[in-house]
């Protein structure tokens, strides 16, 4: 079953985000109080629901507890509405991923305080992209290739399953990395912290079930790598 994403308010940034998400094969549901916006969204082929999320009962109706809902986007052009909806949703549902738009750096803190997991600031993101273009153009080009284009190089997150043969193995002993011709960027050990540990830090980490590895590689190599990891 397809994973769903709910977007509140079909603003211009919402349009872009919805488009990208649909390409990535998510089921996008647009919620907006305005008939005009919904009409536009419908035309573009999204599922729509007319509702104002300023009321808790409407939020409850969305059934955000459903496991198939991957994230909730709050993308209104009005900062106060964003704050209000973010806080209301977080208050009702504790473990949903909320992503909220912010138009100024000063608002970032308030939005995080309201309960958003991630802030999208289009101006900041655009500006940083320009900065990278100026500062390290080659790297940006390379990353674009890997992340955003149709090239066969991909980033993949692989979580070590329970009872894996690699449970308890040291990274330095993980010879399949070289055998499969993939690059290990690093890993996240949920038991220790939420921080990402870079492989280049030089610490020889002991793998446990539940650790998430981030690897880069060509898709068929990655596929092969995955198979090996999941082999019991």
């Amino acid at each position, binding site marked *: 079953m397809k994973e769903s994403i709910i977007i509140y308010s079909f603003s211009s940034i919402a349009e872009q985000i919805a488009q990208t998400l649909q390409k990535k094969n998510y089921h996008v549901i647009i919620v907006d109080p305005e008939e005009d916006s919904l009409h536009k969204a419908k035309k573009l082929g999204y599922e729509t629901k007319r509702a104002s999320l300023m009321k808790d009962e409407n939020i409850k109706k969305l059934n955000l507890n459903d496991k198939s809902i991957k994230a909730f986007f709050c993308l209104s052009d009005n900062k106060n509405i964003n704050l209000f909806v973010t806080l209301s949703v977080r208050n009702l549902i504790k473990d949903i991923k909320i992503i909220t738009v912010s138009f100024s750096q000063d608002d970032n803190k308030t939005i995080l305080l309201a309960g958003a997991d*991630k802030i999208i600031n289009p101006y900041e993101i655009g*500006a940083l*992209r320009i900065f990278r273009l100026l500062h390290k153009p080659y790297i940006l080009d390379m990353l674009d290739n890997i992340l*955003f284009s149709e090239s066969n190089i991909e980033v993949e997150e692989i979580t070590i399953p329970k009872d894996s043969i690699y449970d308890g193995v040291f990274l330095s002993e993980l010879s399949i990395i070289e055998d499969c011709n993939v690059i290990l*960027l690093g890993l996240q050990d949920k038991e220790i912290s939420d921080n990402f540990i870079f492989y*280049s*830090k*030089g610490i020889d980490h002991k793998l446990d079930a539940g650790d998430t590895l981030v690897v880069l590689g060509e898709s068929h190599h990655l596929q092969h790598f995955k198979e090996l990891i999941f082999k019991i």
Partner: protein
Amino acid sequence: MKKLLINLAYTLESSKRYYKIKHFFFEVLEDENSKKRKYFDIFMIFLVLSTVAILIYEVNNPLLPWLDNYETFAIIVFIIEWLSRLWVSSHARKHIIEDYEKSQLLAKPYEILPSLKKIAKEKFSFIFSPMSIIDLLAILPYYRPLRILRILMLFRLFKILRYTNSIKQFRYVFIEKRFEFLTLGILFLMAITFGSTIIYIYEGAGLNPNIHSFFDAVYWSVITISTVGFGDISPVTLQGRVATLFLVIGGMAVIAFFTSIVTTSLHEKMEIIKEDKIITEANSLENFTIICGYGRMGQVIAEELFNIKQEFIIIDNKQENISLATSNKYLCVLGDATDPAFLLKVGLVKGAKNILALTQEDSVNLSIILTARAHIPNINIIARANNNEAKEKLKLAGANHVILTNETAGIVAAEYIGQPVAFNAIDDILLSSEGALIDEIEILEDSKYKNSLLTKIDFSNYNLTLLGIIESKNKKFLFNPKKDQYILQKNDILIVIGYKESIIELKIDLLAKKGEHK
């Protein structure tokens, strides 16, 4: 004689040495951008101030012989300076050559006189220019019979005007506000005439023991109207006192008027002087970035550029944005970035490497792109667009990269949903100043690793991860090359991930030349 002059003109015209020498003098004396001129100006200011100091010293002290010699030395320098200025003020030989060639073309006999006249006219116009007259007056008092004109030495102080640019600007204040000053002068003159006539008529005839002549009356009214009021002459009759009352009130008005003219125009000039200074500073920069528009995006970029010590100048047409940038101590100018003349003034051609068009209006950005591209074909232009249609147009206008803010945000959001751990990792690499970072390392011509296998570099020893190589031959990115097969070429760029210290370590190793040991 005629032939001799023509020959001389042609010899000078073709002589590289003559040209070089003349250009050197021009640089020292007149070229505002030259460093040599700066040093020369400082030297001359010192010379002027020291001779004036000697003049003051002499008033009450016997003249020392070495001071006299010093004075002679200063005068010689002044004379040489004046003569050189006269020399570089115009090009005499050009007139002779031009007129001679014209007459040759028309097959007429060449007349030397008109050419000489032209030359003389140009030279005289220099001699009688205000600055030249000041120069001459500063030299004059040295001539012994004219020692009585010692006071003219003070003209040397005016010479300082010539050597300081900012004081020069103040001269223009008086030129620009001519009309106001004229009105003021007439008003002043009228009040003085009235006042002095009245006091002279009523008190000049022996009534006031201090007023002996009309000059005393004028002296009194000037002292009164300026509100200085020494009190050495004061009115004794009722009529005289009434006149004084009016004169004092009128005097206050005149002074208020005068002060307001001078302060407002000085204030205006100060803004221009400040701006000039910023522009001069921008012109001395190299490889800098011009940021057009200090809005939300401009602010973030400026901050990042500032952090990595890249030089940039901000242009914005809103005073509030400029004030904000100024408070951050960034280099910024108020102005219209779509105006080509303005862009050129801030050094677009001289040393700009990148120009960023970040205003909210797509049309304004388009105009900036076109202007920049028209003047410098190879400048790196990055622009911001608000929708897809505009993006295409901005690319068409010549932008190297166009950023669609919502699109980038959309991609980032989608990536975050899909693979949050990987996303955070990459975000971290790209943004953080501490922790792991991603960097480009180029294999230089004389690196010891040139033409050797990739296995020669022990990345794991440096705790670095090699992502790939941008090959020098086709600028293509080669992902995760096989280490035992790839041979490093000159100008290959290695893309590595790791900690700053490790990257520096590897860079040092790579820079080591062949045969050298670390």
